[in-house]
């Protein structure tokens, strides 16, 4: 899966979990600071990424993912 496709699907997941419109999600957006996620939603995001991409993210590493670009990079590396 190429990076662009990962990015599109990551944004879709974020939009669904955080209930924000996709066009308001910039590539560098921080889940908490820019998109208003709380701590519970941060955990929900990780779970949603795992389901979307059929992967298992190590908890400590997954919580270090704080921005859209972090998520795209992390998931791409994982898939490849």
């Amino acid at each position, binding site marked *: 899966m190429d990076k662009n496709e990962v990015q599109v699907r990551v944004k879709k997941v974020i939009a669904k979990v*955080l*209930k*924000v419109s996709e066009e308001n999600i910039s590539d560098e957006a*921080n889940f*908490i*600071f*820019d*998109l*208003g996620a*709380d*701590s519970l939603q941060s955990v929900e995001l990780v779970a949603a990424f795992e389901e979307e991409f059929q992967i298992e993210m190590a908890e400590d590493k997954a919580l270090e993912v*704080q921005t859209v670009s972090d998520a795209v990079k992390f998931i791409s590396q994982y898939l490849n």
Partner: protein
Amino acid sequence: MSSDVYDKIKNIERIFCPQSIAVLGANKVKGTVPSDILTNILKAEYKGVVYPVNPRERHISSIKTYKYVVDIEDPIDIAVIVYPSSVMHMALEQCGQKGIKGAIIISAGFKEVGGQGIEREEQIKAIAKKYGMSFIGPNCLGVINTDPAVMLDASFARKMPEEGNIAFISQSGALCTAVLDYAQAKHIGFSKFVSIGNKADISEIDLLYYLKDDPKTKVILIYLEEISDGPALMKAARTVIEETGKPVLAIKSGRTKAGASAAASHTGSLAGSDEACDAAFKQAGIIRCYDIEEMFNKAIAFTYQPLPNGKRVAIITNAGGPGVLTTDAAIKCGLELPKFLPETTEILKKSLPKTANINNPVDVIGDARADRYSVAISSVIKDENVDGVFIILTPQSMTEIESIAHEITRVASQFSKPIYTSFMGEADVAAGIDILQRNKIPHYILPESMPIAFVSTYQFKRMLEVKQEPVEPFKDIDIEAAHSILNQALSEGKKYLPEEEAVKVLEAYNFPVLKSGLATSEEEAVNLSEELGYPIVMKIMSEDIVHKFDVGGVVLDIKSKKEVAAAYKNIITNVKKFNPAAKIKGVFVRKMIPPGEEVILGVKRDNTFGAVVMFGLGGIFVEIYKDVNFRIAPLDNKSVDKLITETKASEILSGARGRIPRDMKSLKECIFRLSQLAIDCPQIKELDINPLIVLEDGKGSFVADTKIML
């Protein structure tokens, strides 16, 4: 005041009295910290403008909400930040860009959690520094200012306290909420209330300087778990007290965990971190309290009533037992129960029943109503032999509890002498206590608490009257000589100085040390003794023997050549028996000092406060009697006087029970020299002069033995 300090104080003023506040991370989820912070600001009817910031909400509590703080069109004075620690740097960076100079960082997840938290704390400190910003926290409850012109409750406490004159600074947020609850029940008001959390930027020291000039604050209370800069805290407290007369009361918790560690010197063993803290607080004028109740018992005495002019108190009671209890407690605290003037006794005699006690303590008898209390209080408080009045009430069937409380309030407002009360009991006296507390008359559940609070105010007043005088440093000293000995020993990896070198360090500081020499044979010992003159003292010189007396390594009062030779042999035999591997340098020979009182002087370097100077009863039983006292170097005249007079040894030295009065002038000089040595030579970790023999008045003092640990 440097410009940095000035800017910080200005920023603290902004934090307490902002015109506008941005709440970064506010949300709509009731019962969460981000929501409660905003709710509290609104509930307190804050007099400025508040701007919630949240990237997802358009409005919170009907207030327009901004995505970022930089989006707010108006200028913002301070930010209250409740974002998680992982994005705190982004929030603070935007605050800096917005030109905000003060922040309250509520969120946890910093130094207190270790690891990445420590890095995050360093990161936000750097951002604040870059923008000239000051902040409270992180990891704190928040800030409250009850000034009606401000009405700021930027905290997640349950309720805003009443307005008052007490400022409270706490390192524990949870304790803050308990204190607020405690204070509310007693109608104790606050001027400022601040939880400093990790105190990464604004500390109790900065707040002391700010509160010094705060017109709403009369008394400052501090709860501390950790003191980051002991000398700076002492300086700040002293400045507040000396310049404004505002008392500073403090609880320092964690008293038991850092006791004195096993140490080679007596001073090292006796001067634990808590002793150092105690000494530092006393020296700075900080009134140390050991629990919240004691702190508030004293705080209300300071804030509600005038300070007493003396320590003579009158007690008025309607019950004999509590009167006696209070009398005992008063005497134990060092207070006096004076005899009344004849005119006072005359009024009491005329107005009270024959069965009443018209002397001090006055017993108005169990059936006393408000009129009896009134006449007793009014006449006694006018008596010029009386500096303060304690009023005790026990609820009998005919006791007019509320009327008596009103009467006390009325009389107290007419006189400038302190009146304290104790309405004993709980349910029946509750309404009376409420009247007293609302009218700012100090009330104590236990009557014995009244003398404890009173004596604290009396001692504080006395302390304000005695000014500290700086002491000129001695010029007849040779710092280089002392440094050279100490540095040489350190470079050789020595942990302590051999006695002959320790003596040289003291000689460099012109301590009264008698002439001496080292003998490596019987013959040398005899020759040296003949040269010095008898009587002689001989001591083993070995780096492997620390407590020489205990191993038979010391012989006193040697009067002839023959005794010198025998002593030399005995000392060597004893030491070899105790430790066959001990490396013996020889035997130290010194003229014996004439008889006098043995005291100990010592130094220990404390991690928080620096050089702790010890004084006390000396000799081999120092650690058994523990009659020692401490102060922090450098010492001034007042500190040295207190260092000596707070010990029992002081009475012995002054000639108690027919003993010869000793040379206090030379003793004080030795303590001043020791203080200077401790400041000049940080290489010294611990030092004992034990004993210092203090001769009779006018004849000086002499160092008999010394140890220096590096």
